[in-house]
């Protein structure tokens, strides 16, 4: 599973998307939602990158940017060394990157049999025998093609529909699959079934996943590395064990502390974070987290921290003045208090 190839399969640089907010008497653009603001990361072949963050932090927008469902304002996307728009067309890119959405029902055309839904992509991309592919995949995701091929989405349970969506994403044999909260709407027991399926498929087809979720347990289970987003930015990016051992960014730490405890004798006593996630319309200057951060200092309001390795050559990256010895933060270089 670990990548031997050092070159990343997918490389994202400085991705930006600002949505205009229209309003006022003349309906002019009043403000911009900085949904994604300078996101960069690499994903190696066969790796699974987990993305976590609060609601509205730009996870889905990032995912949609990756397959061009939302147009980039800025930034580059490179797949297998080819840059989107320069070396490779969007259409071609979409053969290699596919996506599974959260709402299993809304992501299937209610007027199409599930077989047609799965085969559609293959047909569009001109692959041979789209129906045969679809039937095989249907079997592969655990649904008997004989019984299910002709059914309509509303005749399936949530878990079954999500399997269809996975099959649909796989029909073009993509290299990368983006899963945007693909299991969040499922019941716990069904979620486990689907996670098992995802693991199997990854192994069988050598897939690379970008797995978006707000459930840290799930992300930990499936991912190799975790990317933490806050207000459209990456605040921490690290291998899963490393981040589980030490959350370098105060926000990551709060996020982890917000997980309900599983120990009846050791329940959470103090909320790790107060208030709601702030508004991406007018993000605070400097470090975007400083308004909710217990360790914020003046420098956090003034200067924007950059994402950098914790130590030379470390795979654990963080964007926080605490970890930058030269930042001028009172606790700079000391890391987080225990």
């Amino acid at each position, binding site marked *: 599973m670990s990548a031997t190839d050092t070159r990343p399969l997918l490389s994202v640089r400085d991705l930006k998307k600002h949505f205009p907010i229209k309003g006022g008497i003349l309906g002019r653009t009043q403000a911009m939602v900085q949904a994604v603001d300078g996101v960069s990361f690499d994903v190696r072949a066969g790796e699974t990158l987990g993305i976590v963050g609060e609601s509205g932090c730009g996870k889905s927008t990032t995912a949609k940017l990756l397959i061009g469902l939302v147009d980039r304002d800025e930034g580059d996307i490179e797949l297998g060394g080819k840059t989107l728009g320069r070396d490779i067309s969007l259409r071609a890119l979409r053969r290699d990157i596919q996506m599974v959405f959260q709402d299993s029902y809304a992501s299937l055309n209610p007027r199409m049999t599930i077989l047609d839904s799965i085969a559609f992509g293959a047909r569009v991309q001109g692959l041979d025998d789209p129906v045969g592919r679809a039937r095989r995949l249907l079997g592969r995701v655990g649904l008997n093609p004989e019984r299910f091929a002709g059914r309509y989405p509303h005749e399936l349970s949530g878990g079954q529909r999500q399997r269809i969506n996975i099959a649909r994403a796989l029909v073009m044999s993509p290299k990368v699959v983006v899963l945007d909260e693909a299991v969040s709407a499922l*019941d*716990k027991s069904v979620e*486990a079934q689907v996670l*098992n399926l995802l693991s199997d498929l990854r192994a069988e087809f050598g897939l690379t996943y970008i797995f978006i979720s707000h459930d840290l347990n799930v992300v930990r289970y499936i991912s190799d590395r975790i990317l933490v987003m806050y207000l459209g930015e990456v605040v921490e990016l690290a291998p899963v064990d490393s981040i589980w051992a030490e959350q370098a960014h105060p926000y990551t730490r709060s*996020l982890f502390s917000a997980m309900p405890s599983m*120990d009846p004798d050791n*329940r959470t006593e103090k909320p790790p974070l107060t208030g709601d*996630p702030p508004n991406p319309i007018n993000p605070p200057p400097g470090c975007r987290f400083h308004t909710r951060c217990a360790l914020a200092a003046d420098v956090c309001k003034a200067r924007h921290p950059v994402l950098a390795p914790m130590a030379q050559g470390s795979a654990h990256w963080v964007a926080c003045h605490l970890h930058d010895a030269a930042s001028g933060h009172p606790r700079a270089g000391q890391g987080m208090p225990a």
Partner: protein
Amino acid sequence: MTPLLQIDGLNVRFKGARNVHAINDLSLTLMPGETLALLGESGSGKSVTLKTLLRLLPEKRTDLSGRVTFDGTDIMTLSGRALRSYRGGDVSMVFQDPGLALDPVYTVGQQIAETVMRHKGISRADAMEVALDMLHRVRIPSAERRLKNYPHELSGGMRQRVMIALALACRPRLLLADEPTTALDATVQIQILLLMRELQREFGMGVIFVTHDIGVAVEISERIAVMYAGQIVEEGSTRDIIRDPRHPYTRGLLAANLHEVARGARLDAIPGAPPSLEERPDSCPFAPRCAFALPACRAALPPVVTPGPRRRVACLRADETLEIAHA
């Protein structure tokens, strides 16, 4: 001590194009001041149980049987004024999606005050004072201003706080909470859970908290009842359920939580899907999905085993130590 709430042999059946046996022979006891988490998959009948307690089910389309007493009074016989003062006065409810459960065209202040006026018979101005006080108690910043806000002007977390303030405004003795944190972000969820815990202590009321997230149940409850197919399959103190789950379904749920699972390891997923409940179950409803099912499980309803005080498990093999064989 008399129980605050006692449910005996409750059955709920929905009639219509399709019959649904939503609740089947459910019994439950809640002592005053106790916090019980009702845990179960979607469709297991958690919400229906709560609605039955408030008599909120559509009367024409439901068959109800069984006995429900609240503090000694049979609530199935309540009607008119008595029913109204029971609802919202003695027992109140917090809903899953506060965005849908609040009237969109009244300010939150008006909505809280209205309840208080109806139950306490006080003036509007006084009721507004109570409302303001409640908003302070649920830690809503700048409560005076929020009082005049409409629900859509508040964030999800805020709205759920308002919902809680509304539910507690008349100092009920029992609070029913139907997945109040499911729609919220993890960071907000924990805030709400802690708030509820604190208010429960302060008001001393009993709480039934519906959730499908074991972690949430652990955070909030003293006791847990696990529901499956309209029945309680296991009940006990939170500690016992977490440390020593006896019912295979409870174990499956715990495993699915992924808390302690090794990365990349195969998950002990419960296979299959819950029954449709079009027929009343006459054998263990979990048997078709159960790795340990015996022929006897498919033949008749399982016996209720009571391994300890106030602990029960509806499983033939509750006393065995079972190990799931990995596939």
